């Protein structure tokens, strides 16, 4: 092959550029045949020879360099720090279900929004690996980013390029720009081969394929990644104006453009067919070459997906069904108690090490005193352990037949294991709490760790262990103290050098630019998570007005309930918290929302609730929703008596149309809406 092409090229004086391109196309096709179709047409030797020839030509003619060339797959770049990149489309996680009843309930929830319309579902296996988002522009791989927190992840493009089943150049008629969502996995065969090699050289083998795949993406040397037999399985395409309208067609298109799409995916016309798919793969999943832990169901139609939308964390149109977990039995050696940042006490079972779903399990959560009581678990018992959601191990039962004689009933602790304060248990709550909020070390450390975390103040150069180190050395007593740290104070600490100390101090100083909603979340007010913090920040705008709000005021804020409201009041009624906030203010931390002024924003739609349904010509659905919100309106997810207008596009569902008519709600077109906002 090699000789033929070069000879022909020389013979006809074909220019070098064409030769290089032909070799690239040829190698791309062989990669596709081998890694995606699993049917190679040439030997490995022939492939290597062709690759070497291309490398030689590219070295001689660097002017023809192309980042999508197959030679780029061998790696060689070294990344010291992976750049954090924002996802253009957020990477949501999926809701989990563990029974068929959960899926029936899910369908009911969908039908509540869509009405009684016929639904198709795509059933795909849930691959157990590391999620990745890859952007393609003009058919070329532009960037690959890890999931991260769903909003932003690490740029691991150089490592992803080394994975042979990831096409660097697409085939056929592809859109100009789109993102591909896939899972980087390590097939069992490759994993075993890697472990065999490690054992041969006397190294410790890897614990499971999932963690190994995930860890591989963060290797600094891409050449090392190239050596690993990683694979990339595509499961979703996202972008504007994609040439298909259903998830299943999307998978088919992806396959045609050169992606590896597992052929197990199936289109189901009803839940009955979904259950058949689940039942089949529950048994046969062990025959697959890679790990799966469940099935992902997606509403097939993109139009319906748009209408269903998203919750704060996951799409309403998709759900993961988890296969029943593997169980093992082992001995309970002791029970210890951990104190969380809120003071919640969690009993932990210390077990005799046992292998479970690819990891060695030594500890499992016992949740609370009720659970211990319910299981009647005692030290020395033989217990059954399983992985809840395949991640966190939990004890599900005690093997009473193996209970040793003279065991004593477990007595739940009455005092905090860390500070010896008497524990309290609030009425209606399952957990015991240590009330020593400002004196119990794990609570203080936990709060500071929460403060510096990525979703909160995102302080670079400072990790959980360093926080503990700073606290134990008396350098910080609360998160406001972080802003008073100096390099000279940090340098004498264990594992601290000039550079790391400077990074820490700079990271802390940089966090002063973090917006108010993140700061509010970082304060660690009980029940105030990311979403609630955003709602509160948006409503109150400043910490001063939030701290002055009454219970009734707070409860009237959208999505804020009494429990959260009471917790906010409790937080601000504590003098120590107020003192810390004042300290943070003095250091310049953001306690006000800095609103971006949109010159086109009006209040013409104030207090009006809109529901958007169908496909539109001049707006995408997201643009339309944004326009409503920018003009003071609210977007509702389903039609109710509170809805003022339904903006109907093409293919609006008949059930929605009927409901809107029944409730006498105005149905307006896209043009009517544009007129409405232009009246401002």
């Amino acid at each position, binding site marked *: 092959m090699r000789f033929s092409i070069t000879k022909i090229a020389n013979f006809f004086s074909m220019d070098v550029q064409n030769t290089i391109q032909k070799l690239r196309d040829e190698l791309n096709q062989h990669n596709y045949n081998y890694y995606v179709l699993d049917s190679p047409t040439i030997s490995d030797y022939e492939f290597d020879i062709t690759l070497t020839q291309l490398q030689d030509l590219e070295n001689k003619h660097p002017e023809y360099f192309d980042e999508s060339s197959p030679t780029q797959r061998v790696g060689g770049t070294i990344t010291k720090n992976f750049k954090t990149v924002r996802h253009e489309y957020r990477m949501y996680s999926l809701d989990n279900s563990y029974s068929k009843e959960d899926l029936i309930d899910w369908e009911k929830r969908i039908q509540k929004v869509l009405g009684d319309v016929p639904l198709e579902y795509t059933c795909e296996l849930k691959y157990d690996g590391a999620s990745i988002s890859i952007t393609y522009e003009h058919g070329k791989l532009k960037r690959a980013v890890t999931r991260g927190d769903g909003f932003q992840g690490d740029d691991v493009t150089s490592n992803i390029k080394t994975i042979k089943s990831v096409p660097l150049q697409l085939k056929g008629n592809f859109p100009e720009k789109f993102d591909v969502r896939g899972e980087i996995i390590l097939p069992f065969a490759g994993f075993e081969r890697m472990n065999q090699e490690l054992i041969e050289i006397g190294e410790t083998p890897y614990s499971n394929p999932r963690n190994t795949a995930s860890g591989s993406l963060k290797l600094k040397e891409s050449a090392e990644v190239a050596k690993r037999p990683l694979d990339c399985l595509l499961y979703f395409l996202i972008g504007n104006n994609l040439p298909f309208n259903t998830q299943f067609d999307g998978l088919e298109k992806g396959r045609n453009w050169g992606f590896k799409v597992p052929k197990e995916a199936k289109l189901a016309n009803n839940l009955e067919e979904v259950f058949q798919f689940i039942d089949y793969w529950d048994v046969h999943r062990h025959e697959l070459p890679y790990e799966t832990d469940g099935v992902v169901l997606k509403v097939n139609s993109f139009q319906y997906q748009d209408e269903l939308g998203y919750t704060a964390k996951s799409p309403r149109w998709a759900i993961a069904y988890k296969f029943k977990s593997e169980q093992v039995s082992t001995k309970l050696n002791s029970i210890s108690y951990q104190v969380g940042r809120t003071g919640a006490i969690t009993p932990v079972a210390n077990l005799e090490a046992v292998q479970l779903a690819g990891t060695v399990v030594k500890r499992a959560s016992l949740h609370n005193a009720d659970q211990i009581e319910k299981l009647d678990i005692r030290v020395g018992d033989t217990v059954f352990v399983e992985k809840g959601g395949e991640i966190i191990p939990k004890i599900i039962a005690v093997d009473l037949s193996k209970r040793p004689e003279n065991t004593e009933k477990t007595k739940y602790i009455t005092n905090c294991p860390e500070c010896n304060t008497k524990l309290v248990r609030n009425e209606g709550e399952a957990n015991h709490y240590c009330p020593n909020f400002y004196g119990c070390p794990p609570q203080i450390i936990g709060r500071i760790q929460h403060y510096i975390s990525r979703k909160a103040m995102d302080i670079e150069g400072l990790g959980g262990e360093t926080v503990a180190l700073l606290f134990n050395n008396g350098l910080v007593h609360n998160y406001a103290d972080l802003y008073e740290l100096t390099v000279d104070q940090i340098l004498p600490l264990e594992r601290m050098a000039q550079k790391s100390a400077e990074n820490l101090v700079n990271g802390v100083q940089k966090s002063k630019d973090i917006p108010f909603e993140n700061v509010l979340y970082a304060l660690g007010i009980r029940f105030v998570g990311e979403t609630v913090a955003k709602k509160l920040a948006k409503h109150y705008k400043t910490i001063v007005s939030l701290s002055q709000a009454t*219970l*009734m005021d707070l*409860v*009237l804020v959208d999505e804020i309930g*009494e429990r959260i409201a009471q917790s906010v009041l409790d937080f601000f009624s504590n003098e120590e918290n107020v003192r810390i906030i004042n300290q943070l203010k003095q250091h310049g931390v953001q306690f006000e929302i800095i609103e971006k002024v949109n010159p086109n924003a009006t209040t013409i739609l104030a*207090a009006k609730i809109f529901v958007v349904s169908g496909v539109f010509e001049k707006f995408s659905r997201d643009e339309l929703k944004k326009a409503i919100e920018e003009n003071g309106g609210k977007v509702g997810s389903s039609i109710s*008596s*509170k809805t003022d207008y339904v903006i109907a596009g093409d293919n609006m569902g008949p059930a929605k149309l009927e409901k809107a008519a029944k409730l006498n709600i105005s149905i307006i077109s896209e043009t009517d809406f544009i007129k409405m906002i232009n009246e401002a």
Partner: protein
Amino acid sequence: MKLKSVIKVLYFLACIFTIIFSTIGKIDWMLWSKAFVLPSALWYYLDATNYKIDFLQAAVFLSCFSGDIYRLLCPNNYVTGEVLSFLTAYILLLYYIFPSFIKINLKYRYNLLLIVLILLSLSTLSYFILTLKFEKMQINILYLILYSVILETLFCVAMVEYNRRITLVSVNLLMLIIFFIFSDMFYMINKFYLSFSVFNFTQIFTQVFSYYFLVNFFILNGKQIN
């Protein structure tokens, strides 16, 4: 100052002046200030709900308003219009609460005992009040019996809800019904049996502030439903 705060101030000023003028016997002035109480309460409600109101809630406000008009403007001894207006408001309120109450509370058997106890005690109280000689009052006694039965039922519902779970909704509902009962009871005793300034103060105080709990209950309950 935000609009919400302005309305609140207006409502509380109207309430305070109504109580003061009523207590010192300046009835003409009280008419003016009381005319602001229910409208400002309604405005507060509308402001909190983006100026949206369900038919049922609007009907409750309207019935209370009509009851107030009768109470303030009609001849001294003729109370049928007033009783029927407030009775309508209470029936509508019961209709508003009852479906979710039945759905939630029938599961709890212990509530039955509580309901029986409350009914017994309230029936005794009603019997005592109804046997008083309201000689000047011109009304069919059957209206009053129905009135007390509906109020008793409302109190039972509120008490059971409160007993099941103490929330802002249940607290506001309970306070609302207690204020309704006190207001009606002391109004009748003061006007038709034994006139006493403390009775007058209690009835006017509980009546004007019952609207505050009514509005809060509607807002919070509406939020819970949504």
